[in-house]
């Protein structure tokens, strides 16, 4: 499933540069001073460990100065893992959260990590860090016992110290490691503290670097400055696929113009000068004619599957024939843009044939490989460092901007920073895949769903399986050669698949005259799903009659990436194009809750972000050009779109914690679509829904 989410990564390099070679070796585990280093060894097949150095999962250093440093290949993009992983380490190491510093995504310092996506940090990385922290605590106890010549059982670790329970004597971790330089390797499988005994995890520890955010002190990639640094800007083709055939730069002076194969750009003393210079370049392009546009998109998707396409399955066909009611529907979702508020940015600096790039990416090691390939240098000549980044939502997996900054830096002989403009971000990044979903479903008079035939063209397979008990079903994903560059997105295809499925379930409920909530219960057996549905519908007050006309309520539920979500929405309407989401109640369960306040923040944020894709976000394109690549033309949710949001967190301390940044996004659109139907009698089957409502009415 992971690979399907990342199919944007199968494309070739963005630019072809002239080859160069250099070989210098670099040791992975550098000496980082005195103290104790603990390295977690995993078997090479463990989750997330696919490339060199495959055996290292996590790494922690207790310095003799009292510092506790954790090295982790993930990236912080606003999902608050700097805080949640600090809690995980503090929980097991028995130290104060404030004493912990996490180094994220630095390919010279942190162990390999496949990337920060798929809601995997909490279920996979946190246990690794907890293992290494637990082992460090045990080492401290063992070393203190030896130092004091006492029984280890007499000792306890507390607040960064080892204490003798009998004598009351106390020694700080730093003193225990003082003057030593130790490296210990441990295996996974340390005994971890169960959630029922958590003291630091499970609490609402405030965001550990919040003060740096509210004072403007935090340095994002786009804020960085290196000595002698220039500002870069890339010459963009006039349409997708266009090739640069000639470049006249005679009018451009005082800046460095770099042309290399398909690539051209400038490096200048200021952003202003770079922007002016790139505007004064006179390029000639050969363009790709007749590219599909958004108007004919869904017909194109249906007509161009890469595999066999839709093949009927006989048992499903028979069940459909035998069903009391049959409902056939086609749903569509548009391409949408992540629109991270910090556009892609990178600062590149060469030292000889060694390259260092700071960039906001969710895949530091992937970008390192991209850079090594682009410049034909050994991977160990490339260092990628990821400062905490101005969001990603699955949109920052790739290294285009890093490669561009590096190429300009190479040409200019100085460090270069490239910050993409909003127009570039809305054009040259990749999009959440558009999709066409066709469903044929059969239902018995008593409300039992008997047949389910579900075909997704292009948008992806995440969350494609129905959680309902259906005896005869076929569920297929058909990949299509996408007209636009597409890739991962928060929740990715789960949003599209849930929208189609949950709206279809609503249609089936209406077909048999059942309440949509009762209809769901009738077809579900999973207790976790039922629990979130109960939590959301009870808090929402499902089934209570409305006092005002033009109101409607809808419900939807879903499961993805280890989390269960149920969402109820109430909409008001003053005409089909004037839909307002009045209130949303969302219940979410992802096992044991690591940080209730931050989880609530993620769930609320998912609801707000989901409003855009549900109602109005849509990339318009024609013949290789994006037509709405500005924030004034691409509408994202704002304060005025905000409904009243009630969040119900279901805490299952008996279950392992799952990630939470993605799955809460999937329930909003179908809940709203179903509410719109109740309010207006119009069934919306396209995301975004507002344009289709306007069209329905015209």
């Amino acid at each position, binding site marked *: 499933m992971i690979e399907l989410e990342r199919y944007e990564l199968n494309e070739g390099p963005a630019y072809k540069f002239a080859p160069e070679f250099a070989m210098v070796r670099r040791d992975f585990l550098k000496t980082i001073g005195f103290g104790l280093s603990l390295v977690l060894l995993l078997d090479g097949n463990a989750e997330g460990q696919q490339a060199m150095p495959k055996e290292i999962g996590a790494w922690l250093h207790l310095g003799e100065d009292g510092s506790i440093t954790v090295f982790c290949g993930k990236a912080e993009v606003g999902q608050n893992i700097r805080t949640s992983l600090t809690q995980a380490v503090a929980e097991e190491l028995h130290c104060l959260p404030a004493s912990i510093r996490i180094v994220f995504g630095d390919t010279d310092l942190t162990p390999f990590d496949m990337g920060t996506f798929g809601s995997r940090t909490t279920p996979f990385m946190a246990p690794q860090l907890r293992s290494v922290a637990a082992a460090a605590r045990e080492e401290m106890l063992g070393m203190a016992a030896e130092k004091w010549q006492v029984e280890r059982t007499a000792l306890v670790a507390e607040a960064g110290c080892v204490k003798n329970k009998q004598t009351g004597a106390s020694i700080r971790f730093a003193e225990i490691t003082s003057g030593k330089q130790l490296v210990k390797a441990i295996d996974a499988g340390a005994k971890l503290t169960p959630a029922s005994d958590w003291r630091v995890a499970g609490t609402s520890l405030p965001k550990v670097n919040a003060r740096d955010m509210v004072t403007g002190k935090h340095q*994002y990639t786009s804020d960085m400055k290196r000595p002698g640094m220039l500002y870069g800007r890339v010459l963009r083709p006039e349409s997708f696929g266009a090739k640069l055939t000639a470049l006249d730069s005679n009018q451009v002076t005082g800046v460095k113009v770099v042309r290399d194969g398909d690539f051209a750009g400038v490096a200048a003393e200021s952003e202003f000068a770079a922007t002016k210079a790139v505007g004064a370049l006179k390029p000639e392009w050969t363009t790709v004619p007749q590219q599909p546009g958004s108007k004919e998109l869904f017909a194109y998707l249906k007509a161009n599957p890469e595999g066999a396409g839709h093949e009927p399955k006989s048992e499903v066909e028979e069940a459909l024939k035998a069903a009391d009611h049959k409902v056939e529907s086609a749903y569509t979702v548009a391409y949408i843009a992540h629109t991270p508020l910090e556009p892609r940015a990178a600062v590149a600096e060469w030292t000889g044939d060694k390259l260092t790039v700071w960039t906001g990416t969710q895949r530091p090691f992937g970008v390192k490989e991209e850079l090594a390939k682009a410049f034909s240098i050994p991977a160990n000549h490339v260092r990628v460092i990821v400062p905490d980044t101005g969001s990603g939502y699955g949109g920052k997996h790739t290294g285009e901007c890093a490669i561009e900054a590096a190429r300009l830096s190479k040409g200019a002989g100085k460090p270069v920073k490239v910050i993409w403009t909003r127009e570039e971000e809305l054009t040259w990044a990749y999009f959440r895949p558009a999709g066409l979903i066709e469903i044929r479903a059969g239902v018995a008079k008593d409300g039992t769903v008997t047949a389910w035939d579900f075909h997704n063209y292009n948008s992806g397979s995440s969350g494609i399986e129905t959680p309902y008990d259906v005896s005869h079903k076929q569920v297929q994903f058909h990949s299509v050669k996408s007209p636009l560059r597409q890739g991962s997105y928060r929740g990715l295809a789960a949003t599209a698949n849930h929208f189609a499925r949950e709206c279809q379930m609503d249609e089936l409920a209406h077909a048999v005259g059942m309440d949509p909530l009762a209809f769901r219960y009738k077809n579900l057996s999973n207790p976790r799903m039922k629990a979130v549905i109960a939590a959301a519908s009870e808090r929402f007050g499902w089934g209570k009659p409305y006092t005002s006309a033009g109101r409607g309520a809808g419900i939807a539920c879903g499961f993805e990436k280890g989390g269960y979500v149920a969402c109820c929405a109430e909409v008001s309407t003053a005409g089909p194009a004037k839909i307002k989401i009045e209130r949303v109640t969302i219940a979410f369960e992802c096992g044991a809750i690591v940080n209730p306040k931050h989880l609530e923040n993620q769930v609320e944020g998912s609801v707000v972000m989901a409003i855009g894709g549900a109602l109005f976000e849509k990339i318009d394109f024609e013949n290789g050009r994006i037509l709405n690549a500005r924030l004034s033309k691409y509408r994202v949710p704002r304060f005025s779109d905000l409904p009243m949001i009630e969040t119900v967190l279901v805490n299952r301390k008996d279950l392992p914690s799952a990630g939470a940044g993605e799955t809460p996004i999937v329930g909003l659109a179908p809940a709203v679509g179903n509410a719109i139907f109740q309010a207006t009698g119009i069934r919306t089957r396209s995301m975004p829904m507002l344009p289709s409502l306007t069209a329905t009415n015209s």
Partner: protein
Amino acid sequence: MDLLVNGKQVRVNGDPDSSLLFALRDELNLTGAKYGCGEGQCGACTVLINGVAMRSCVTPLRATAGKQITTIEGLSRDGKLHPLQEAFIEADAMQCGYCTAGMILSGVSLLRKDPAPSEARIRQGLEGNVCRCGTYPRIVTAVRMASRKLQGGQA
């Protein structure tokens, strides 16, 4: 050109037609103001000019002569945070934090005009600021908290 930034007279060399945003960020190293859209649509670049929230990305340098510019770096006093900065931390009103400085300055500007804004007024006052992470409910809470603190402290 001379500018008055965070109470200090400073000199910048940027083209008078270039934006205040890039002079602040690239010449004065005041990187709290962010680039987000370049057309005054997202509010990430917000600074106070004579106490009023303005979009520095669409404010040319030449328009700022003689005016008092306050950036997020100049909002705290002697290391003590502004009540709205404190409220943002307390309400957990951020995720990635990229919009935060602009949100806070827009909020400060709003609270100067209207010390006790209703929820509707807060939403309206911050409509030009985008938080792509969707922390709007918490930002509204933070502004209300700061409003109460400011009124309590200064009444």
